[in-house]
């Protein structure tokens, strides 16, 4: 999966597109891992162009969220579509990964 990356003041926005699944989740996870290792621990994942996510994609997001928090940062998700919201709800992950309406809003206080 290719994803856009925007370096904002204080945080980084990553925008994957298509399906976030067992094929595309590992490269996204690796890139976020590199960013965190470089001290860029405030991450926004803009899901506006992601049409669906599976359990592999969820696992990657949780892994990255934990890594970011362990390094003093956080991971926020934004612009989740209907399928992503449904899956977050069904897996109870909306409790720790509540989507922001937009990437701008997610990064506003960073």
């Amino acid at each position, binding site marked *: 999966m290719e994803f856009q990356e925007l370096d904002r003041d204080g945080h980084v926005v990553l925008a994957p597109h298509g399906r976030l*699944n067992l094929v595309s989740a590992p490269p996204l996870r690796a890139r976020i891992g590199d960013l965190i290792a470089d001290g860029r621990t405030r991450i926004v994942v803009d899901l506006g162009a992601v049409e669906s996510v599976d*359990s592999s994609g969820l696992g990657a997001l949780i892994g990255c969220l934990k890594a970011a928090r362990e390094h003093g940062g956080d991971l926020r998700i934004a612009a989740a579509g209907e399928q992503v919201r449904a*899956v977050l709800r*069904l*897996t109870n992950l909306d409790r*720790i990964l509540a989507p922001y309406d937009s990437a701008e809003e997610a990064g506003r206080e960073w």
Partner: protein
Amino acid sequence: MSGDERYVLEGFAVPEELGRVHDLLGRVSADHPEVDPTDLMLFETAVMEIAGNVVEHGLPPGEVRWRLAVRVTGEQIEADLRDTGHEFSADFGKPMPGVDAESGRGLPLASAVLDQLELARVDEGNHWRLARHLRP
């Protein structure tokens, strides 16, 4: 599965084929505007989880073949997935893992959105049956 199987896919259960599974379900959706899009979306979510499970855990890796057939009846949307992998034992009663877990959500997620999820060992292969009732 009896009746007309208008949507069938055969091939190797490898990551590159997941896109074809998605495309097949896209055709089902396009041909059935009468079906609630939410039902289709949740059913597709379950099918992609089971297909992903076969791709990820099917043995021997890269050698498992599958045949997926999808059918829409008046009452439900159903999928019949047969794979040639080693016997797979699935615990469909497993609860959804805690929020910190990085894996283990696939089967609980599929179970949560289906009315029927079964796995049987038939003719040296695994036979998965998935169905979601269509709400009137």
